[in-house]
């Protein structure tokens, strides 16, 4: 059966399920906190969501390890049950759905027909394009073909994980299957990248919720990532930042500096060039994040993170230029000793952040506003 025109609003659905307004308000307060919205925005969000209708979601998986879906289904707040059953209508996900084979494909085709031009396409994994795309086939079709078919009628595409966003591990040197990012294969479609290996579950959920609430693609950075989650570097929000500013660095794992919780920059931390919400949203229900556990950030939310040399070498100065057009002169004498380098990169990081914000403000409305009016 095709979805009826008069699909109930989320408010009506919740009412039928006996979910009280207070419960939903609570859920919105938690989401507003995640989305870094002013806390009082929860009420407006609740009102908008209660009046909205659930969008149909088609979830496709290509070259990936299912870690992103594992991350999403281990989302604590809101729970995946809330997300899936209350806010979106997940009509196709070949990993989660009960149907398989021809029945599953039929469900996808039905949902696409019934919601043509309106459904949200969520993609997990890169798509191999080498040799006609033969390195990924499902139901007798290549990934390239499936993506093209499903992207055609989508209102927007959300790429979950670094593989879908930037090619990730499948496209790491020497990229034997010629794996590519989704945004390079769907010209003209609004794309949102939720990068990370895997992305933080609350960030995936928050991005989807933001779309449902506003009915449009959120504000994006130059890598098409929602600025609300990817607007700050890990370094800028890191609780170890004061040690960095004081020039106090751990030199090896388990030295006195490491035990005292000093900055991990010299142990290879990619926090200064990595934009993600790990330092604020954290992981496992806000228990911790890698740096808090004593390990440097790997930079997994950035393009080509796998090919940027050792995870345990400090960021080389040329990367600063590449990452954000901050010249060594602006960033200071990066190589002039650990403490000096620390302070210089601190300046560089602030400059990067300001430039990103300034550029966003100057640019005419980005891709977020194109082709997605409903």
């Amino acid at each position, binding site marked *: 059966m095709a979805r009826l025109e008069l699909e109930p609003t989320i408010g009506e659905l919740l009412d039928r399920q006996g*979910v009280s307004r207070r419960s939903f308000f*609570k*859920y919105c307060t938690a989401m*507003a*906190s995640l989305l870094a919205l002013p806390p*009082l925005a929860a009420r407006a969000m609740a009102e908008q969501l209660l009046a909205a209708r659930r969008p149909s979601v088609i979830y496709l998986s290509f070259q990936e390890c299912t870690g992103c879906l594992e991350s999403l289904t281990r989302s*604590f707040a809101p729970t995946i049950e809330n997300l899936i059953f209350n806010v979106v209508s997940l009509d196709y996900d070949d990993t989660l759905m009960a149907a398989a084979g021809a029945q599953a494909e039929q469900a996808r085709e039905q949902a696409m027909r019934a919601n043509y031009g309106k459904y949200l396409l969520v993609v997990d994994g890169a798509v191999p394009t080498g040799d006609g795309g033969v390195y990924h086939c499902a139901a007798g079709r290549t990934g390239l073909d499936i993506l093209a078919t499903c992207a055609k009628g989508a209102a927007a595409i959300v790429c979950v994980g670094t593989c879908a966003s930037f090619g990730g591990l499948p496209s790491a040197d020497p990229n034997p299957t010629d794996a590519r990012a989704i945004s390079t294969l769907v010209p003209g479609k609004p794309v949102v990248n939720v990068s990370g290996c895997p992305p933080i579950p609350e960030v995936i959920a928050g991005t989807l919720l933001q779309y449902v609430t506003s009915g449009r693609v959120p504000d994006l950075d130059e890598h098409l990532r929602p600025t609300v989650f990817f607007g700050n570097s890990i370094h800028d929000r890191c609780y170890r930042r004061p040690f960095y500013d004081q020039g106090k660095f751990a030199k090896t794992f388990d030295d006195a500096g490491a035990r*005292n919780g000093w900055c991990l920059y010299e142990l290879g931390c990619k926090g200064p060039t990595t934009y993600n919400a790990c*330092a604020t949203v954290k992981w496992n*229900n806000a228990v911790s994040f890698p740096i808090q556990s004593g390990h440097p950030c790997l930079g997994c939310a950035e393009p080509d993170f796998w090919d940027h040399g050792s995870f345990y070498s400090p960021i080389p100065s040329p990367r600063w230029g590449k990452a954000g057009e901050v010249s060594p002169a602006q960033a200071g004498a990066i190589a002039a000793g650990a403490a000096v380098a620390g302070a210089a990169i601190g300046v560089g990081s602030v400059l990067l952040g300001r430039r990103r914000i300034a550029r966003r403000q100057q640019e005419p409305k980005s891709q977020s506003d194109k082709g997605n009016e409903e």
Partner: protein
Amino acid sequence: MSTLAQIPVCVEPVTVSHGEATVGGGIGAILTEIAERLERLARTGEPGAIDLRSLPISPADRAQLLQALGTGEVDARVQANGESRIRETAVHGVWWTQHRDLDGALLASLIEIARIPDILIVGADDLLRGASRLRASLSFPSAAQGESPHGTT
């Protein structure tokens, strides 16, 4: 090279002096913001809120903040898909709200500056829904009963 056990561990807190007391870097700023929002609430009626989870403050700083605000007269618990606890602090109009899920995990932690926090207020829709539910449960015989499509029994 010393062994792990021989390396002394001393955590260095980041502090600033705030009046005579020494408080964590952000705490003084938060208290100032709360005072400013209280004045705005009194002046314009506009409520405010500060999301404690989004602030890069340590658990020790958070405890210090709550200690500075003290304990007030109201302590409300809401059972709505997990417990929410809304406590007024010793500063009237400043509430410490914590929302938890069914497993007790913390979903949100806020300092609210309001006469009454939003979650305790009943929405207009809920009032009407409550009224219609009550009316539906009442079965007063009415003049129109004989003409009811359901007939009489």
